[in-house]
């Protein structure tokens, strides 16, 4: 898609997004739309490492949860929304730094296992250290923030706030992708040894990318807390890390919108499945297996490939049919 058609498609999507509360049925679904957007931010954050950095993490749900829990606990302790949000971001950045220092000792499967272990440790704390985190009962908050005095208590107003944050995140990610730093990160993904010989500090590039990823995880975690007004240990479980990874790989890691598409697919599928079929884990697992086995580059590039193929075949068939005598033109 080039030029004008891309621009008009983009404008159409923006218009659609901006008017969701009007054409979506009831407030429950508007909340779902908000969730799609916040998980899109989460997926974009993970894609910084997976897609641009070539580092697959199975512990990112831990960072997401750290943010939500920090804000939730601070709010319960009596802090205001501003302080709670700032605290959440800071603590998550700290956690990201720890994650990075430990996991960047390795790449590939080693990186995967270290992030998995770290995520599991955070889950273990959320689940078992009940004195701190209230364990399985979770943490609930009574109010949503009121930025600039605007109440976010209603579903549409929360949606618009989430939409604004999502659009900012998208713009920042786009700038990151096109920037020299983004190119350095991708270069380190493709030829780490060569990059070092060219004068780049590969470890530092990855470390900073991890912090950038962690920052947006913290934003997504905050949005989640405000959306549900509740957070529980499940949010940090291995399954949650697998879900966000699925969002990234199902939408495709190579494009900016891939993770967004993936988040949309996964969240909607989760809700549809839960409503009609009871077992989400089963469906999640099957989709995961299918994508890994058949379309490792993700649904978006994969379907572009398949769609392009189908389109060419259809056009070719039309061309041959036209050239036959007696064929309708």
């Amino acid at each position: 898609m080039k030029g004008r058609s891309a621009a008009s498609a983009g404008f159409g999507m923006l218009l659609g997004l901006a008017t969701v509360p009007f054409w979506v049925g009831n407030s429950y679904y508007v909340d779902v739309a908000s969730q799609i957007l916040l998980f899109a931010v989460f997926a974009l954050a993970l894609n910084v490492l997976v897609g641009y950095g070539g580092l697959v993490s199975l512990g990112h749900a831990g960072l997401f949860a750290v943010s939500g829990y920090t804000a939730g606990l601070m709010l319960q302790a009596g802090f205001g929304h501003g302080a709670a949000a700032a605290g959440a971001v800071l603590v998550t950045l700290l956690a990201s730094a720890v994650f990075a220092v430990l996991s960047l000792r390795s790449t590939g499967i080693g990186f995967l296992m270290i992030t998995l272990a770290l995520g599991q440790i955070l889950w273990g704390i959320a689940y078992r250290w009940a004195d701190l985190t209230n364990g399985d009962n979770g943490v609930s908050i009574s109010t949503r923030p009121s930025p600039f005095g605007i109440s976010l208590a209603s579903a549409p107003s929360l949606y618009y706030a989430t939409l604004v944050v999502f659009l900012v995140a998208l713009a920042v990610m786009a700038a990151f992708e096109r920037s020299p730093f983004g190119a350095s990160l991708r270069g380190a993904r493709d030829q780490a040894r060569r990059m070092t010989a060219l004068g780049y500090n590969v470890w530092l590039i990855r470390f900073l990318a991890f912090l950038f990823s962690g920052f947006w995880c913290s934003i997504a975690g905050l949005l989640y807390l405000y959306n549900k007004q509740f957070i529980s240990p499940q949010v940090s479980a291995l399954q949650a890390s697998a879900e966000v990874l699925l969002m990234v790989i199902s939408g495709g890691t190579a494009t900016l919108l891939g993770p967004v598409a993936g988040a949309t697919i996964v969240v909607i599928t989760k809700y549809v499945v839960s409503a009609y079929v009871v077992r989400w884990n089963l469906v999640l697992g099957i989709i995961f297996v299918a994508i890994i086995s058949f379309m490792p580059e993700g649904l978006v590039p994969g379907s572009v490939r398949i769609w392009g193929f189908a389109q060419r075949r259809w056009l070719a068939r039309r061309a041959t049919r036209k050239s036959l005598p007696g064929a309708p033109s």
Partner: protein
Amino acid sequence: MTLWLTLAVNSIAFGGLLFLLSAGFSLIFGLMRIPNLMHGSFFMLGAYFGVTLLAVGANFWVAALASALAMAIIGGGVERLLLRRLAGQELAQVLLTLGLSFVVSDLCLMIWTGDPWQPLAPSELRGVVRAGGMIFPLYRLAVVVIAVIVAVALWLMVDWTRLGAMIRAGVDDAPIARVVGIRVSRLFTLVFALGAALAAFAGVVGAPILSVYPGLDADMLPLALIVVILGGTGSLLGALVGSFLIGFLYNFGQARFPDLAYVILFLPMLIVLVVRPQGLFGRGGA
């Protein structure tokens, strides 16, 4: 004092179970260079399978062996039909096993529902042993003996048979093993099936102690992971030592620091991973 002794016996028994679980995991990790994230699933599925057979009146050992066989077939099938298609892409293979673990976990929930099953120990091993004025459950001691027997059998296989030599060659250097004519792909299928069988056997043997419940897979997998990281991938001796170590850490940790049980378990693994990632993963690492 008796509490500690009881804990100690439980730890040794648990260590024995862990060895049965981790030996297969270690072989798979050593040979195929992937942490099999569905290993806990094989344990749980095998346990459910065995317990079902027990419920229809089968002999305990028959149930355990039949379950091992069933999981060997399933494991072999998974390797041959799914993992082999991704040969050379270890990261993709790991994610595949993760996806499958979700599938198995939900299938088990659908088939066997959420109630835990706890079968009785085989009738010949019920009862207690009295020693030094103390009472120890006979079955737990039996589990240790079983683990040792299996350990010896595995060691004999790996060190003394041709198959074992091929496995060791594959663990050392799979590409070179191929070059000298070892059918490494078939070896992968075999070892994966063997690992699944061992896990299933462990699941059934462990059922009278741990019971079988949804989430058993998620409880056991991290333990296998930790044992193998600590003990070294592909090393049966490492799995043996690691299993008993973790058995103790787990039980005593649960008793003394229930809040931080998970952290206590994962921390040594993390330290090892961080300090020596290359030594553990060879090809798959940095």
